[in-house]
C-alpha cells in the first residue's frame, strides 16, 4: 500500500510532506505546552473523580436522608391525627358543637331552655345547653362555660340525708 512508506521505523512522520507543510508540522511539534498549562490541566483532570457526574445525578434524583426523616415524622403525625379525628371527632353524630349553615338573626335565635334544677337551685351543665349557647353566639357559649366552671369550682355543702338526721334525733332523744 502507498501509505506503508510512512511506516519505516527510521522515518520521521513529516519526511514525506512537502516543504511548506513539513515546516508547519515541525513547528507544531516543536511547540511544547508550558509547564504551568500542563500542571493546571492535570489539576483540572484530577477534579473529575471528586465531581463524579453519576453521583451528582443520582443525588439529584434521590431525596436526602434528612428529607426522609421529615417525611417519616410527618407521616406518623398525620396517622395519629387521622386516628384521633376518626375516633373522637370524625363522625358528625359525635360532634359536640354544630354550627348553623345560615347566618343567625335575631328572629331565629332559639331560646335557651332551662335545665333540671339541682336541689340548690343550680342548673347542671348539659350538652344541650352548650349547643344552644353556641347556636346563639360564641359569647353565650363562653358565658355558659364560665358559669359552669365557677359553679363546679365552688365547694358544695354536703347533702343532708333524711335517714341520718332521724337516727341522730332518736339518739338524742
Amino acid at each position, binding site marked *: *500500500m*502507498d*501509505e*506503508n512508506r*510512512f*511506516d519505516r521505523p527510521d522515518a520521521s*512522520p*513529516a519526511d514525506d*510532506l*512537502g*516543504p*511548506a*507543510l513539513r*515546516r*508547519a*508540522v515541525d*513547528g*507544531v*511539534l516543536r*511547540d*511544547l*505546552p508550558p509547564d504551568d*498549562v*500542563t500542571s*493546571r*490541566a*492535570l489539576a*483540572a*483532570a*484530577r*477534579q*473529575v*473523580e471528586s465531581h*463524579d*457526574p*453519576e453521583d451528582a445525578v443520582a443525588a439529584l434524583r434521590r431525596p436526602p436522608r434528612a428529607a426522609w426523616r421529615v417525611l417519616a415524622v410527618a407521616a406518623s403525625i398525620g396517622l395519629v391525627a387521622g386516628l384521633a379525628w376518626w375516633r373522637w371527632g370524625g363522625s358528625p353524630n359525635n360532634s359536640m358543637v354544630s354550627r348553623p349553615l345560615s347566618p343567625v338573626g335575631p328572629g331565629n335565635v332559639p331560646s335557651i331552655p332551662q335545665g333540671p334544677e339541682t336541689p340548690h337551685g343550680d342548673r347542671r351543665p348539659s350538652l344541650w345547653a352548650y349547643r344552644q349557647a353556641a347556636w346563639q353566639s360564641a359569647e353565650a357559649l363562653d358565658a355558659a362555660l364560665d358559669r359552669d366552671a365557677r359553679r363546679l369550682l365552688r365547694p358544695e355543702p354536703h347533702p343532708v340525708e333524711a335517714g341520718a338526721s332521724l337516727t341522730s334525733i332518736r339518739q338524742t332523744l
Partner: protein
Amino acid sequence: MADWDALIDEYGPMVVRVSWRILGRGADVEDNVQEVFFEAFRLHQRETVRQWGGLLRRLATLGALARLRRRRREASLEGLAEPACECPPEENLIAGELEARLRAAVAALPGREGAVFSLRYFEGLQLPEIAATLGIKYAAAATALSRARAKLEAVFAETAVEEQ
C-alpha cells in the same frame, strides 16, 4: 476502580500534549484535558477500559479537533483572526503563522481525515496504531490519511507560491 491519580500521572502529559498540538495556545487546552478525563471516567463507570492510552489519545484528538472547528467557526463569524503568537519576533511570527494556518486547515478537514492526520504527524503513530486508536480499519485509515495529506499539500502549495 482504577487508580485515577496514577492514570493521570501516566497519561495526563500525553493528553495535554495532543490537545496542545492541535489547539495551540489558549485556555481550550485545559478545558479539553478536563473533558477528556471526564468522558473517560464516565466510560470507565459503564464498562471496563482495557487500553487507557488508546482511549485517552482518541478522546483527546477528537475533542481537540471538535474545539478547533468550533473556534474556527466562531472566528469566521466574528471576522477575527486567531493570534499566532503573543509577543513574537519576526521568525516566530512566520512560524506561528504557519502553525496557525496548519491548524486552520486541519480543522477544515472532515472529521476522520483530521484525526488521522493529527495522529500520524503530530503524534507519530503508525497506520495500524491509528486504525486501532480510532476503531477503524487499516484501509480506511490509510485512505483518510492520503486524502488529508493531499488536501493540506494543496493548501500549503498555495502558501509557498504566495511566499515566492
